[in-house]
């Protein structure tokens, strides 16, 4: 037997997806060994965040006759029709990482973090580290990305309860630009207590900024996702913490769900992959796992 | 005397056009050799083959005894051939000196360009050809066509060469400038440089050359010592039999109605100032002047390209302000540019499209369509009427010879039916036969009620055609002469007046 699965993400080229895809491929291999079926997993997606092109890719994938689809659904409406189209043709679809927030998408299940809840975790971590007053910055790499907007909303829910004031920065997907933006903010606000991000690029940039301006220990740095630069910065003490959403699981579980559904008709269920905080206390464990591609 | 260049059965074909067919002749070392022929006869093509721009299809060229087959212009230059091309290829963004030394800048140690030296040498070369008013540091894009032409000549002179090829170098020059140029050419000849000289002005060819080669329809007709020829002989060889004659026909009397009246016209940027004249119905008003006198600028001002900043223009007695070419055209004014390369032609378009550019709105039909059939009819009419040599109306304009391109431009303005037509150097680059044709055309325009303002550096032509002549000098009118008063001497005296 042979199953052909695709992972379709809203942007294919950022490093965030690497552990997610590895999780999916590991699951495929595990199942192959255990069940004697051959499962292939491919990763597709537009180059940059682009809903429309992602829809096209999903249509093309359906057309090409894949057996199952794992997809991020970064839009409340746009994916309703193509997912329905897939289901009509007997292709199961599981959402991962980013769900259709309107709740009307016919996908079988969602595996991932709830962005608002996870944003709240970041907010709570900020309060824990800087106290309940003072000025901080929160960077977004893309001002129009629904997940980032939801995370920001979560952060706001927490910070608005305190006396912390915050400036929202557009740090862009470019590391150099992100560094420049945080630098400028810190220069303009010498009393700033922290810089934070809701995405991986901005978080990586923070370490460089803190190091260059020599603000280690004076300005808190924290953000999102496990990428090598960020983990390094946590180890070196430039960055204090990062929110992890377990992308490995976001790839692993959906494959299992699709397989069980196709083989045995067991419907997949929603799984929250949580929002765990990685900081100096556990970074070393995470680092070794990250090197193996699990985190 | 030995042959420095020998052509043996050289042929070149462009698509459906046989530009050159089995052309053979030799250039004697130390001669000035004339090359003449009708528009489209293949002169420029031949020169481009020698200059490494085109590759010949067949035949052989021997230069200084060795096979000459340059793959690039640079290679031709290295072998000792300098070319002044017909189409004035200069970089408009660079200065005169930079253009002169374009391909072979003088370098200081460390690869640094030595601008001061190049400017000095440029000024020197210009003074050699009697031009001291052109600053080597001026940007070429701002020069008049004549000044650009001189720059090209200086560019060719700046290189040490055995063979100097000049493709219509005098087309934009005034008689005085031509004389100085000829002095330089004679001096070069005395020093042993061989010169190949192309011109449509046969008097020049008779004056300067030692031998003449005539081409017709891409074929070699004859190569003869100039001394053994008369102008009439050359014309006969060029056109086959005596097809056209000069007919200084008595022309219709201009009426006394004033169609255009200009009072104290001025334009600040060009320095045009205090220009006043009247133009009568059915009159040919000649404008004479040396290069830089401001004749073109007067034309551009009347046509609304550079709107007047002072003075008054009255059309049929009504004061008008002409602020754009569109408006001028709507008022019945047409302007044939002297700069067909930059201001005239649409290089990506074909003959027909170039012809209808001015009347495109008049060809409009329902839903904004334009009438193809009417356009084709106009095109066919023009090609026949002006004897335009083209493979067809759909031939790209860039593939026509220079003279034929000029005819297309002229036809464009004729199709617009203007009541006042300003012609700036209308016969520049046009062969003798066609020149007569165009002169006749101007006559017939006048018969039909058109008034013509004629700007021409060909003084004989100007005097032959004009009912009256106004002479310009330093952007002002220095005198007005009636038909009978206008003689070469008086015009030149006024043109060079302070």
């Amino acid at each position, binding site marked *: 037997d042979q199953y*052909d699965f695709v992972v379709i993400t809203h942007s*294919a*080229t950022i490093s965030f997806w690497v552990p997610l895809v590895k999780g999916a491929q590991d699951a495929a291999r595990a199942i192959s060994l255990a069940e004697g079926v051959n499962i292939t997993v*491919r*990763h*597709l997606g537009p*180059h*940059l*965040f*682009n*809903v*429309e*092109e992602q829809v*096209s*890719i999903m*249509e*093309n994938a359906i*057309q*090409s006759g894949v057996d199952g689809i794992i997809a991020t659904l970064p*839009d*409340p*409406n*746009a994916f309703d029709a193509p997912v329905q189209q897939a289901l009509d043709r007997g292709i199961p679809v599981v959402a991962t990482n980013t769900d259709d927030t*309107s709740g009307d998408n016919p996908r079988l299940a969602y595996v991932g973090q709830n962005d608002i809840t996870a944003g709240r975790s970041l907010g709570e971590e900020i309060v824990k580290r800087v106290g309940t007053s003072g000025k901080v910055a929160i960077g977004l790499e*893309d*001002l*129009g*990305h*629904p997940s980032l*907007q939801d995370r920001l909303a979560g952060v706001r829910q927490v910070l608005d309860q305190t006396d912390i004031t915050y400036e929202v920065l557009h740090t862009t997907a470019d590391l150099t630009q992100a560094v420049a933006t945080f630098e400028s903010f810190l220069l303009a606000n010498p009393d700033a207590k922290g810089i934070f991000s809701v995405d991986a690029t901005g978080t990586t940039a923070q370490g460089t900024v803190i190091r260059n301006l020599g603000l280690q220990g004076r300005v808190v740095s924290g953000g999102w996702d496990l990428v090598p630069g960020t983990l390094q910065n946590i180890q070196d003490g430039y960055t204090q913490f990062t929110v992890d959403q377990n992308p490995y699981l976001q790839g692993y579980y959906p494959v299992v769900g699709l397989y069980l559904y196709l083989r045995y008709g067991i419907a997949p269920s929603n799984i929250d992959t949580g929002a765990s905080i990685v900081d100096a206390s556990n970074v070393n464990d995470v680092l070794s796992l990250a090197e193996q591609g699990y985190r | 005397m030995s042959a420095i260049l020998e052509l043996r059965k050289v042929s070149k074909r462009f698509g459906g056009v046989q530009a050159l067919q089995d052309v053979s002749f030799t250039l004697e070392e130390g001669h000035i050799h004339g090359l003449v022929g009708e528009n489209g006869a293949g002169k420029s093509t031949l020169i481009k083959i020698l200059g490494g721009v085109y590759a010949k299809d067949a035949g052989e060229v021997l230069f200084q005894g060795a096979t000459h087959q340059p793959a690039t212009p640079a290679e031709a230059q290295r072998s000792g051939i300098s070319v002044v091309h017909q189409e004035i290829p200069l970089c408009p963004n660079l200065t005169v000196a930079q253009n002169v030394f374009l391909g072979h800048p003088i370098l200081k140690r460390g690869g640094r360009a030595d601008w001061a030296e190049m400017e000095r040498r440029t000024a020197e070369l210009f003074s050699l050809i009697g031009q001291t008013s052109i600053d080597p540091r001026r940007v070429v894009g701002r020069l008049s066509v004549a000044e650009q032409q001189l720059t090209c000549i200086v560019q060719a002179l700046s290189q040490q060469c055995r063979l100097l090829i000049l493709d219509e170098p005098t087309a934009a020059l005034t008689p005085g400038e031509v004389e100085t140029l000829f002095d330089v050419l004679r001096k070069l000849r005395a020093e042993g440089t061989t010169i190949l000289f192309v011109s449509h002005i046969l008097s020049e060819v008779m004056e300067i050359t030692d031998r003449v080669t005539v081409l017709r329809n891409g074929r070699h007709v004859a190569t003869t010592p100039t001394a053994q020829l008369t102008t009439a002989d050359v014309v006969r060889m060029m056109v086959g039999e005596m097809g056209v004659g000069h007919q200084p026909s008595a022309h219709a009397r201009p009426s006394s109605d004033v169609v255009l009246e200009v009072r104290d016209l001025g334009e600040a940027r060009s320095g045009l100032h205090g220009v006043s004249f009247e133009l009568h119905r059915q009159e040919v008003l000649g404008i004479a002047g040396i290069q830089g006198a401001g004749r073109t600028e007067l034309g551009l001002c009347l046509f609304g*390209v550079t709107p007047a900043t002072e003075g008054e223009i009255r059309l049929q007695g009504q004061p008008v302000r002409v602020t754009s*070419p*569109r408006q*001028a*055209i709507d008022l019945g004014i047409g*302007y044939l540019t002297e700069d067909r390369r*930059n*201001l*005239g*032609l*649409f*290089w*990506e*378009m*074909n003959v027909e*499209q170039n012809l*209808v*550019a*001015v009347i*495109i709105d008049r060809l*409009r039909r329902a*839903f*904004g*369509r*334009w009438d193809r059939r009417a356009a084709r009819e106009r095109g066919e009419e023009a090609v026949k009427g002006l004897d335009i040599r083209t493979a067809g109306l*759909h*031939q*790209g304009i*860039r593939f026509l010879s220079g003279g034929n391109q000029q005819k297309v431009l002229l036809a*464009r303005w004729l199709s617009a039916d203007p009541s006042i037509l300003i012609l700036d150097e209308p016969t520049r680059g046009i062969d003798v036969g066609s020149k007569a044709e165009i002169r006749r055309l101007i006559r017939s325009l006048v018969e039909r009620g058109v008034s013509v303002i004629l700007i021409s550096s060909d003084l004989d032509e100007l005097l032959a055609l004009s009912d009256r002549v106004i002479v310009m000098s330093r952007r002002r009118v220095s005198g007005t002469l009636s038909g009978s008063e206008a003689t070469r001497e008086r015009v030149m005296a006024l043109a060079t007046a302070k």
Partner: protein
Amino acid sequence: MGRSGNLPAWLRSREAGVLLALVLLVLFFSVTTSTFLTSLNLLNVLRQVSVVGIITLAMTILIISQEFDLSVGSMYAVVGIVVATLFNGGMSIWMASLAGLALAAAMGLVNGVLTVRGGIPSFIVTLGMMMVYRGVALLISGGSPASVRLPAFFYSITGSRLWGAIPAPALWFVIMAVAAYFLLHVTGFGFKAFAVGGNREAARLAGINTGRVKVIGFILTATAAGLAATISLSYLGSATPTQGQGMELQAIAGAVIGGASLMGGVGSIVGGFMGAIIMGIVRNGLVLLGVSAYLQELILGLVVIVAVLIGHYSTQQRR
């Protein structure tokens, strides 16, 4: 070269090369995949390219008049967000769409007037406006996507599959191509666009209002972006403020693959139409072939270059 944009002669010219590239691509994917050459898939491709394609058509006209517009993606976002917001605010979808198109035309007018009157290159004007309009889309939407539930009739003629098969966006693309063909190759305006792009000074001396021709080109392009935004809103049921990033390069690439020259004066609607489709076919075919995301980008780039090379060499046109 005989390329002139409106004579049968053009069929012998660069468009023929583009067609050859297109045919080769179709052949390749037909042989290598079993699904490519199905009517369902081909209609899908047409639907997928329709949004960028509509913009490509207008961009071709603008490029021929020697300008281009980098802000189309941002205008596309603004119009999508505005139409959705107006509709959700209670306006009828017809009125909202009309308002969106009018807004698009206004943005095009701004681009055009700044370029022509300001005398600064369209590259800079539209790069600047790309950021400005993007900012506008973000401000209006607050960064969040706007979803709509459109009335059935509007949806059926703009977003759905008509008669159960033909995607309405694809139909719009074809209709717009016909309209653009008429405009560029049949009307006096089209002639003027070629003239202005070919030699602006000569066009001015021939009495053509060169500024107006260019401004109209900008307005057409912006309006095409607005129409594309409305169609995509209908099809997807939502608009995001970041949509359309990189669209400008796709649209310009389509026009250039189709033979338009960024130096102006050269190009055709048939070419632009095929250029847009070539881009779409490659994207589609690569997914059908199962090529991974990283390799796709690489291959797409190569195909773009090869397509232009084929178009170029098959017609032995050299300058």
